[in-house]
C-alpha cells in the first residue's frame, strides 16, 4: 500500500479514538487494543502509519468499537468487505456496470436506488 493510504488510515483511527477518549477513558490505546484483540504496540504502529492496516476482521472490530462505519473504515484501509466482494462476484458484469454508471452520481441520486423501508397505512 502507498504510504499515503497508511497515513490516512492511521490518522483517521487515531483522531476517532482520541475524540472518544476526551469523554471516556475507556478509549485509551491500551483498552481499545485489548477490546479488539491486538497488541497496544501494534495499534500504535497502525495509528502512526508504520504498518499496513489490519485484517478485515480487525478493522470491523475497530470500527464497531469506535462507532465508525465498517465499510467506510475498510475503504480507508484500501479494502472491500468480503460480503461486498461476494455480491460483485455473483453478478460481476451487472455490478461493474452499475458501479461505473454511478461513479459520478451525486449522493442523493445514488440514495434514490437504495431499498427504502416501505411505509404503509397506520
Amino acid at each position, binding site marked *: 500500500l502507498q504510504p499515503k493510504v497508511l497515513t490516512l488510515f492511521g490518522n483517521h483511527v487515531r*483522531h*476517532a479514538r*482520541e*475524540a*472518544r477518549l*476526551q*469523554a*471516556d477513558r475507556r478509549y485509551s490505546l491500551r483498552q481499545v487494543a485489548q*477490546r479488539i484483540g491486538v497488541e497496544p504496540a501494534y495499534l500504535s504502529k497502525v495509528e502512526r502509519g508504520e504498518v499496513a492496516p489490519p485484517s478485515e476482521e480487525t478493522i470491523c472490530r475497530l470500527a*464497531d*468499537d469506535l*462507532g*465508525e*462505519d*465498517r465499510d467506510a473504515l475498510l475503504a480507508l484501509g484500501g479494502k472491500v468487505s468480503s460480503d461486498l466482494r461476494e455480491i460483485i462476484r455473483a453478478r460481476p458484469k451487472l455490478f461493474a456496470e452499475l458501479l461505473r454508471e454511478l461513479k459520478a452520481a451525486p*449522493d*442523493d441520486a445514488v*440514495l434514490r436506488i*437504495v*431499498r*427504502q*423501508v*416501505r*411505509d*404503509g*397505512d*397506520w
Partner: protein
Amino acid sequence: MITLEDDALVFRCPEIHPKAQFSLSFQRTLRIPDDGRDYPLPPGLGRFSLRHIEDYAKRVPERWLRRGGIILPMFQAEAMWLSFGSCLSFDGEYPFALKVATGKINAVTGAPWSQPLCRDPQDYLVLPEQPWLDGYSVEKGIIRQFVAAPMGRRITVEEQLTGEAEWGGIQLLAYPMKRERFDRLEAERRKIAAEFSDLFAFESDGEPGDAFIATLRETVLEMRCSLGLAPGGRMHQQIFEDEFNVEDWDQEHGSRCFVTIANSADWTSITGEAMPSKPVTARDYAAAGLHWYDYYAEAPALDGSTVLQGVKSIANTWGDAGQDALDLVTSVAVGPIVQLGARPVREMQD
C-alpha cells in the same frame, strides 16, 4: 427516506442537507425490577434483528403487511431501549425532532398518535441531544422501562388507555431541522469552535371458507404472534426540552416507520432464521458485578406525563392477566455505575 442498515434504521433527508441523517437501533437489555426503586441505566446488550416486513408477505398477517415498515423479534417480558446515533463522525450532527409511540400512544405524553409536533406539552425528542429512550416518561427525570407484553391481556399501554388491542409495536416519525435554521446553527457552532478550538479539535393462501372465519383466524394469529409494549420498572432518565422553536422543524419532510414486534417464539416460522437467544436477567447481570450507567446533563428536562403515570406497570398487570408467573419485582443490587460523559456510549461490546 429510511433505509435498513446493519440492524439499524437510518433516517436521511438528502433533499434537505447531506448531513441530515441519524441512525436508530433497538437495543436488547436487562428488564429492571418493577419494585418501586429507581434504577440506573442498564447496558445495551446488542441490537435486535430488523427485517423488511414485506420480505415475509406469505408468513405474516395481512394487517401487518398493510402497515409496512419493519419487523423485530422480542420475547414476552423482554426489555428494550432505543439508541440514537449520528451517521457522521464527531461534530456537525444534524438535529431532528423524533416522535416515538407504542400502540400509537405517544411515549412522552401518553396522548393518542398525531403527526404534527406539539410543543405544549412537548411530544417529541430532540436529537442529537437525546442519546436514547428507555421507556415512558412518567416523572421529571424518570421513565418506566419498555417491556414486551402480549396483546389482548390489558397489559400494554395502548390497551390500558384505549381499551383496544389494535396496533401494538412501535411507531416512529422524524422531522429534520429546516435547512436555513441548520445553517445558522452551523455558523454558531463554528463560532464556538473557533473560540474553544483546543476543545473542538476534532399467513393462509386463500382456503375456501366464509370471510368471517378467515378474519377471525387472522385476528387470532395476529394476537398470538404480535407484541405490544408495557411500562416496567423505574429508571433515571431525562427527556430534554426542545431548545429550538417548533417553527425550526421541517414538518413537510417527515419520515415515518411502523415497527411490528413479533414474538421471538415465532421468529423462525416467519423468517426461517434461528430464534434469538434468551435475554440475560437483571439478577444474573448484577451477580456478575457488571457495569450500570448514569447520564445526567445540565439541560432543562420535561416533566413526566400524568397520563402515563396513571398506567399500571407490569408488576400490577402481568399476574392478573393470567400470564405465566414471572419474577418481576425482586430487587437486584446494582453493581458499579459508570458516569457517562459528553458522547455517551452504553452498548456493551460483543
